[in-house]
């Protein structure tokens, strides 16, 4: 596949799909950019040019900084939980246990539940301060049940999202563990390495690459968490659980300000790209070799 002929042919053949993908991306982006420069409110049929006014408005909104912080806290915490417990659970599942296949299937199941549905289950069945399972558990020990979404709203969201994304991490790490060379482990055993030495010197370096993939993919999706917040806290109390995605939504569809929401959208795109560049720098190194 290295002759000039085949390269040219390859380019021609993949061109349609590349052009389609480009349009798919460019048109909404261009429209967003255009809207962000307009005074455009859904309640007002008159639009006018606003220049950078929308950006100034969005950036000076006190909710913006807190939403940025909330986004970072949410992404960071979920990543930490799914990386740490992901490795731990994957190590457990890699052991030979009875009913291993069933256990694996059940562990992976949360990943296939729609975010809206799982958020509803957590909200109404588990975390409800009156009738929830956790409230019952608290009462069982004579404690006052926690009103999750009022007292610790961010922690609640983190728990829900982590519950959804942990299986993904487990799945990827487990596959990686199964490809761990058995003779290497035995060689380490002959070298006198204990379980911890083997974990830190062999298993963990082996997991560096799949962990990078988990972090990369999860970050992409966690930056845009929306359904869980919408269903449970609605961004509240106040703006305590409003992340960037939810702030843009409330700007556009609660305050009908399409212009400011578009400006916010573009700011989010820039921020996500900055995060992506840093991530690729840090994590990408592991993917090379």
């Amino acid at each position: 596949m290295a002759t000039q002929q085949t390269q040219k042919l390859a380019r021609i053949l993949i061109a349609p799909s590349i052009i389609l993908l480009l349009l798919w991306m460019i048109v909404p982006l261009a429209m967003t950019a255009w809207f962000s420069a307009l005074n455009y409110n859904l309640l007002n049929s008159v639009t006018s040019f606003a220049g950078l006014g929308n950006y100034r408005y969005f950036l000076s909104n006190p909710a913006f900084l807190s939403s940025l912080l909330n986004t970072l806290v949410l992404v960071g915490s979920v990543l930490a939980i799914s990386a740490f417990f992901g490795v731990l659970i994957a190590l457990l599942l890699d052991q030979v246990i009875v009913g291993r296949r069933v256990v694996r299937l059940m562990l992976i199941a949360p990943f296939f539940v729609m975010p809206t549905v799982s958020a509803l289950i957590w909200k109404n069945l588990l975390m409800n301060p009156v009738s929830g399972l956790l409230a019952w558990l608290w009462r069982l020990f004579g404690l006052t049940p926690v009103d999750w979404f009022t007292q610790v709203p961010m922690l609640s969201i983190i728990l829900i999202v982590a519950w959804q994304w942990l299986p993904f991490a487990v799945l990827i790490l487990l596959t990686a563990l199964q490809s761990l060379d058995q003779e290497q482990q035995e060689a380490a055993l002959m070298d006198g390495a204990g379980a911890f030495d083997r974990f830190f010197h062999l298993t963990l370096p082996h997991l560096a690459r799949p962990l990078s993939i988990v972090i990369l993919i999860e970050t992409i999706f966690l930056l845009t968490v929306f359904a869980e917040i919408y269903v449970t806290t609605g961004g509240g109390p106040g703006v305590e659980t409003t992340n960037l995605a939810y702030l843009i939504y409330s700007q556009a569809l609660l305050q009908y300000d399409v212009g400011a929401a578009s400006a916010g959208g573009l700011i989010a795109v820039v921020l996500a790209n900055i995060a992506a560049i840093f991530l690729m720098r840090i994590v990408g190194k592991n993917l090379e070799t």
Partner: protein
Amino acid sequence: MGRITLEGVTKSFDDTKVIHGADLEIEDGKFVVFVGPSGCGKTTLLRLIAGLEDVSGGRILIDGKDVTRLAPAKRGLSMVFQSYALYPHMSVRRNIAFGLKMARMPKSEIERRVAHAAGILNLTDYLDRRPGQLSGGQRQRVAIGRAIVREPKGFLFDEPLSNLDAALRVQMRLEVTRLQKQLKTTAVYVTHDQVEAMTMADEIVVLQAGRIEQVGTPLELYERPANVFVAGFIGSPRMNLFEGPVAKRNGATTLGVRPEHLRVQPGDAVVADGCEAWGGTVIQAEHLGSDTFVYVDVPGIGTLDARCTGELRVQVGDTVTLLPDMHQLHRFDAQQLAMA
């Protein structure tokens, strides 16, 4: 010191018995090769000595000390694996030093030993590379380096050369043998290749279906195989073995004669008293220049393989007479055991 003794060692996986009571005495400093067809239990036996598998019965002693229940690292043996099993995330230096580091050895001592091993194995220039950047032969040497720095009582080799190409294998064969003689450390080496066994071993242990068939020096096995299996397994090309009236006439159930002990004479031949002569037709002749391999179909016996030194002008379809060296006939009884 490194005297390894096996006393009635057995091993079963679930209900299948794979080692049927092995008794063996490996003297200090000897190079012992376990050889046998695949599935004969040679690797299992090695892993039992290493401690990577639990024995089902019997005892393993090293220098007279019972190590049957001891952890692998505590037995003072080191192992070279078939896949080399190098640690891919560590440099060659750290690979070799790993076992010493685990033993909490002082840094200066580790450095001295790694440098020494690297010197012996020509690895000094590669110490900072990763295993992935090395060729097969270099990886092999790193694996050996990892084994020798611990200055063990014995080396265990599990088919270490089977992943190398033919030329490299011959070279590494020499290197390993020379190294072992230089270090004077007991070595147990597993292979399915009988040429490797014959060339490297002080003593060969032939295994079949979980049983030790015969133990002896290479030449003992070649000259006096204890049974039909060993006779057929040791020696290349393999020994001609056949039953029937000719075997009966020589007082055996199975008669064996090595290809190099058959003389090929074109046409008919005059037979001296008390000698055998078998006439037949050439069905295949391989001319290597240095040797000629002739396959002859002999009525009443079957196909016999003869090896003649130098070039022998015979062609397919020629009638020839095979004259066996009467002192080199191997006779086996109905139990397939060698007759005195």
